[in-house]
């Protein structure tokens, strides 16, 4: 970090501060005021620089100092991230609580990671080896998790010496011949996507354990699903249920502008619940980035970048990562607030016109990649959206629809009749279904696709018949249609609905197949009966 330059505050409006300081770079990190509030350069003008402050600006005064850091806002990446809850600026919330008590006061923390903690390091390369960005030089045991240590993407050279055994993050693990030292952690500017060798088309699915998702609207590894829904439609419960059960290595959960109580609930549950794969608490595979609705708005804007940079880091280590963000609308609103305080020209519904491009470049950070060291890693995203008034024509939902691969529409009507997950099976879709059909045929059952089509057909017929039935009653329907109605009702309550509070919260693809088969068999048999045919073989 080069010694920063300093100046004075000339104007303050909300969290937007102007300074007479020139010579800063765009998106450079700054310390603002007597309490060293964290800020970022958002605009350079002839008469000074415009800054966005990420903490509560009340009490900030005219002529207070502003100091540049010479580097942009970064995310710190290394061992010790797992099971920690960070705020939007990657400050560990438990350390904040230890320093300022139950309420958050503006405070400056040195590092996001515990640099004093002792780790055990096992090297994988030797003196004289040539290493470059992304190469694994060893690993640190982080509880049950083996944390590979990689060369930061922007470094390379020949190894001069390697450390081994007990070590802290303050000590270098490796020195290169050019004199540069490699530590167990490095920092990465959060707004810049991390590099990889190449992107690969998604192949396998992320098994969420939710029947309606895995069977009807599957998510591919490296893909993006969006979950828009009005309030009370169960977005958060669905995201949390998926966070618990998804078959991925690492979960990054971003609580963006949502409720504080939900977060305490989540920590409590994740500490209790055991990951069936690793047999350790779910928390051990999870990193939480939390900026609740009452925490500073600008840090909420930064929080999803912190989360996605964390996700990319684990992807670069060769893991399958799932990023869940709840909710992207709150991020967009933060963007709108910042934009409006910068007096930018508003676009649709007051959102800045760059809303769609920011969203699409964010969503593009998902994907399956060949990492710099040649491993395969993936980052998948499930993003919830909170459309005002439950109206999906609003800009955030619309912008995300263009860039994401699956749309899981939450339905207020279903939620009101306590059908959860309240995913509407008529309007939701997944663009990954064809890509994933092969996988399911090979790994679960060759009938997967056939039954999926049949199931959708039954549900479509039910929808069409519903109106007629409202008028004539079920007894007025033809026998064949009555069969559709009975089976559809069973599929709805016994297959599409899933209770997140019981053992049914997770359903394996095999079990999913067995359940739907029992209903479709019933349907096919019934159909044969009504047509007077002898019962033939069922699927």
């Amino acid at each position, binding site marked *: 970090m080069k010694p920063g330059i300093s100046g004075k505050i000339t104007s303050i409006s909300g969290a937007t501060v102007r300074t007479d300081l020139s010579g800063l770079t765009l998106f450079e990190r700054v310390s603002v005021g007597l309490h060293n509030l964290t800020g970022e350069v958002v605009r350079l003008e002839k008469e000074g620089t415009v800054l966005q402050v990420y903490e509560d600006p009340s*009490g900030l005064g005219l002529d207070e100092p502003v100091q540049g850091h010479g580097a942009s806002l970064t995310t710190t990446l290394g061992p010790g991230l797992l099971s920690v809850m960070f705020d939007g600026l990657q400050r560990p919330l438990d350390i904040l609580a230890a320093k300022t008590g*139950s309420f958050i006061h503006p405070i400056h923390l040195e590092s996001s990671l515990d640099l004093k903690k002792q780790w055990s390091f096992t090297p994988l390369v030797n003196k004289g080896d040539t290493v470059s960005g992304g190469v694994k030089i060893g690993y640190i045991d982080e509880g049950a998790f083996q944390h590979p240590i990689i060369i930061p993407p922007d470094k390379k050279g020949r190894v001069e010496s390697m450390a081994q055994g007990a070590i802290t993050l303050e000590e270098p693990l490796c020195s290169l011949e050019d004199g540069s030292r490699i530590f167990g952690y490095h920092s990465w500017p959060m707004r810049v996507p991390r590099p990889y060798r190449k992107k690969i088309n998604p192949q396998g699915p992320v098994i969420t354990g939710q029947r309606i998702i895995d069977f009807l609207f599957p998510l591919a590894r490296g893909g993006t699903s969006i979950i828009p829904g009005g309030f*009370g439609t169960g977005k958060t419960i669905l995201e949390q249920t998926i966070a618990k059960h998804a078959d991925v290595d690492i979960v990054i959960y971003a609580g963006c502008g949502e409720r504080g109580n939900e977060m305490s609930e989540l920590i409590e549950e994740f500490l209790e619940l055991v990951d069936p794969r690793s047999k350790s608490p779910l928390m051990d595979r999870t990193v939480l980035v939390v900026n609740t609705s009452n925490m500073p708005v600008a840090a909420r804007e930064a929080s999803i970048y912190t989360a996605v940079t964390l996700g990319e880091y684990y992807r670069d280590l060769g893991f399958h990562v799932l990023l869940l963000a709840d909710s992207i609308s709150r991020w967009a609103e933060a963007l709108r607030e910042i934009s409006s305080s910068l007096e930018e020209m508003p676009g649709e519904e007051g959102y800045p016109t760059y809303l769609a491009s920011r969203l699409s470049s964010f969503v593009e950070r998902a994907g399956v990649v060949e990492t710099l060291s040649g491993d395969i890693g993936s980052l998948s995203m499930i993003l919830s959206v909170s459309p005002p008034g439950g109206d999906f024509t609003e800009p955030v939902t619309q912008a995300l629809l263009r860039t994401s691969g699956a749309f899981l529409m939450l339905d207020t009507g279903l939620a009101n009749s306590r059908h959860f997950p309240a995913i509407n099976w008529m309007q939701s879709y997944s663009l990954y279904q064809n890509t994933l059909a092969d996988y399911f045929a090979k790994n679960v059952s060759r009938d997967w696709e056939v039954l999926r089509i049949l199931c959708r057909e039954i549900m479509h017929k039910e929808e069409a018949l519903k109106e007629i039935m409202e008028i004539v009653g079920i007894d007025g329907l033809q026998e064949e249609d009555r069969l559709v109605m009975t089976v559809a009702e069973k599929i709805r309550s016994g297959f599409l609905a899933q209770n997140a509070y019981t053992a049914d919260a997770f359903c394996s693809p095999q079990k999913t197949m067995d359940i739907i088969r029992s209903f479709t068999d019933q349907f096919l048999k019934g159909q044969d009966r009504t047509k007077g045919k002898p019962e033939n073989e069922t699927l």
Partner: protein
Amino acid sequence: MRLSEHKYKTTSKIAGQLLYVENVHAARIGEVVKVIGPHDIVLEGEILEIVKGNILIQLFGETRGLNAENMEIVFSDTIRQVPLSRDILGRRFNGSFEPLDGLPMFYASKWRPARGYPINPVARLRPQEFIETGISAIDGLNTLVKGQKLPIFSCAGMPAKELVAQILQNARLRESSKGFAVIFVALGLTFHEYSFYLEALQNIESEFAAIINMADDPVMERLMAPRFALTVAEYLAFDHDMDILVLITDMTNYCDALREISNARKELPGRRGYPGYMYSDLASLYERAGRIKDSQGSITMIPVITMPEDDITHPIPDLTGYITEGQIVLSRELHQQGIFPPIDVLPSLSRLMQKGIGAGRTRDDHRDLANQLYKNYAKGRELKKLEAIVGREGMSEGDRLLLDFATQFENEFVHQEGLARSIYQTLDKGLEILEKFNLAPDALLKQKAEA
């Protein structure tokens, strides 16, 4: 810190509650200023914006009679703080936190900023202790727990205040160890409503404090009153381990005030003219409810909202619903049928119910019973629409049964004029109606037999 008070006479503009001052040398955001006008007018204000030497100040109180040339602005170098003491209980204050009851101001033992600080999510304690309100539609199907924020979504002309009065009357928070108190915040209330609430408060046995902004009081104070109240609530709950119920009525007036001030500041209007930051602003109030790990106390919040045009998708109920942990929705239809309280349980919801009910909290059959009641009532309501088309005669026997169940559920379970029911009475009532229509599952009956 500046060494002395400094004063300016350089007012450049006054617009409504906003005051612009030029050539100021030192100022900070949120700083409290005193404005001394002609005829001994003294007003307080707060600095909103600093653009070089030009300062924008938001004034509290009546600005009529101010004169730009004849005015002195005194900068205090402190941000707005709330005086705190246990002596607040039993007192009434206005929206500027000045006593309304004719008694002198209490002696403050602590001062804290009115805006408060956000609770660190790791310091929060998950709310899970059941609060009995005595109202079946709430206790049985939308259970309230300590530390929850559960708004009432009402419509113009509906008996929200009677419902609130009943909750106040019955809420069994009184068993708490270090005491229970109500903080009542009136925002833009008419005298008629105000006197109703005051009487209800005086009839309860618990202590209370009231912060009152009447319909004809300054709009700016409407935005400050809930912040004073919540700072007081935090002090009583987390410094004195008390269980505090904060009742705010009517949040619709608050949001309209927010829109008015935002408009005066020439900010960009959002949906229906409300500012784009309304979500964050509402969250800065609602999120102050809860419990924390290092205190026994709790803040439970019941905000009342009057939905304009009975529209639940209007920005005020919409944004509220996204922040609060559920909502109690009143229905005009039920009200017209003479049902009190006219709570429509279908769109109502308590997000924290799952952890607050069951064995050890209420009764072990609570969850099953609630699900069964809800499910059948939802079906019955759906069938009512059908009945309007095909007539009762055109329906199957099973459907007719559900129709009758729905009617009986409304008339006997939801409806409960004046009388409070204990949670056991509520659950027994529910089971009784289910049994009458043969809708109780065997598991429930078995549990009952065992009990």
